[in-house]
């Protein structure tokens, strides 16, 4: 079975802060990590491979340094890695990103049985690229997958919903986005870590993927960022300090005044 796992390198968003003077992100010194939900997608692939054999290819689209995330994925047990990277792809929104990743999937030598994504990336939080790629690539899509078993013609997938879960039978090839509750990524092995360091990671750019140039990067993206700003700060706040009993007494008085108690 051939499984492709699409991963994204993201800044560790818990460590990103905003400069309230300039409204810019302070990204210096913020570590880059594999998007945490993509780790769950990778582990799902590894477990399927443990059981049924096959090959796992990890793909990432991003700047040259995203190669680091691919090496990490290899150290956890993926077999091959491909980096999609080109200046021309820069500034892509989820539409243009989905289009570009699909071109890479179409270029793979072996037919794909399953494409896995994390449920969303923690930097953009859009959850749009998985379903986008599925449609461009022409395969059925199940979002928020918690488990996946191989069946005769495809997969049986448990999908987390807003109020419980659904079970789907989906034919292969299929695409899934995977939730955190699915699993936890195994530790990398020392041997694989060494191999990952030396692994050859091909870089596919516009020359290799031959995209329709109107559909990539900034120009292929329907959405544009109009304005970026710091989250609003409340102006009429009251700060209390002192003895707990006094603070709480004053707070309760004010809450009753506002009729919320």
């Amino acid at each position, binding site marked *: 079975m051939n499984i492709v796992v699409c991963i994204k390198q993201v800044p560790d968003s*818990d460590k990103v802060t905003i400069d309230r003077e300039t409204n810019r992100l302070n990204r210096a010194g913020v570590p880059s990590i594999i998007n945490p939900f993509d780790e769950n997608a990778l582990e799902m692939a590894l477990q399927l491979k443990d059981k049924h054999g096959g090959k796992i290819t990890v793909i990432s689209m991003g700047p040259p340094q995203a190669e680091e995330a691919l090496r990490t994925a290899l150290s956890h047990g993926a077999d091959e890695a491909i980096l999609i990277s080109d200046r021309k792809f820069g500034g892509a929104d989820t*539409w243009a990103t989905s289009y570009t990743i699909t071109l890479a999937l179409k270029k793979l030598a072996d037919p794909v049985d399953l494409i896995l994504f994390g449920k969303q990336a923690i930097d953009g939080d859009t959850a749009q690229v998985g379903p986008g790629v599925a449609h461009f690539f022409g395969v059925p899509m199940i979002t928020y997958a918690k488990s996946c078993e191989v069946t005769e013609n495809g997969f049986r997938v448990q999908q987390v919903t807003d109020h*419980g879960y659904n079970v789907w039978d989906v034919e292969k090839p299929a695409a899934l986005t995977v939730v955190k509750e699915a699993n936890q990524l195994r530790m990398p092995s020392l041997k694989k870590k060494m191999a990952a360091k030396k692994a050859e990671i091909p870089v596919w750019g516009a020359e290799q993927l031959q995209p329709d140039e109107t559909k990539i990067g900034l120009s292929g993206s329907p959405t544009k960022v109009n304005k*970026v700003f710091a989250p609003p700060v409340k102006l009429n706040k009251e700060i209390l300090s002192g003895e*707990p009993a006094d603070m709480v007494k004053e707070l*309760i008085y004010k809450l009753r005044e506002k009729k919320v108690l």
Partner: protein
Amino acid sequence: MSAKKEIWVFAEQENGKLAGVVFELLSEGRKLAAKSGYTLCAVLPSAGGKPMHQELFNYGAKKIYNVEDPRLQTYQNDYFSKVVYSLIEKENPEIVLYGASTIGRSLAPTVAVMGWAGLTADCTELDFDTERQILLQTRPAFGGNIMATIICPDHRPQMSTVRSNVFKKERVSENETGEVVEVKIDLSGVKERMKRVESVVEEVNTVDLKAADYIVSGGRGVGSPENFKVIEGLAGALGGAVGASRATVDAGWISHHHQVGQTGKTVCPLVYVACGISGAIQHLAGMQSADLIIAINKDPDAPIFDVADFGLIGDLHKIVPEFTKQINALRS
């Protein structure tokens, strides 16, 4: 390209029951309609839509695109994306809004790709720029550390998903009327590539964060799983629910059902009490629309105080039990 001056709300339903977020989207859609002069419409794919029409009108839809087919009883991505996209192709609306539910977050990106349309996820604010005649879609990014306003200047429709509890629902009246447009869409050519074999509704213990009037949440400052008892105590005294930050859920102190924030639940209670939560905006993104926010934290510089109406600086382990005690005294 000139699009039809309509704002569509995807009327998400399963088994004839409309999702709550639909009414929130219609309520917000009315404001956009008033500002833009566009017509607010509901798009209702279902197995039988009539019983749902009155409620859609009551919340402000002036027109309903009613699509009926037995295959639309419950959600299936291939059928629903075919229906919604065919309608968009035919009618060419300016704006389409979807709930950011499991369903909306599968449907909207599929439709966006089909039509080369712009899609902005998880908007927390929508506005209409009357000068440029475009939708302004504001959303948190980078875990909520920053807000971005997204526009879609050249492609139509302009589409957004919005989480439940971000906008308030408000009925116009109980006997609104409007137009129903019956649309036939042929699904016989859509191959059945996936089939739902089971659907289970779970009563997720007693955490009903979305419906609670009072929520008391604990963060890293709570210190240990045992100490969540203090938080539960105050929640109990207030008759509310217990929330938690991502840090405490990741640490395994409390189940993820309690998690409030960008990757957890979005809540909108009357009062939100944040205890020992520093206020990574990942968390703020899930609770900022609470009517009143109380922050209890020993660090006076914690970002949680930026969004608080009342800030109590001090040790939560002393303040919260005192709060519980005084509430209990008040209630007895």
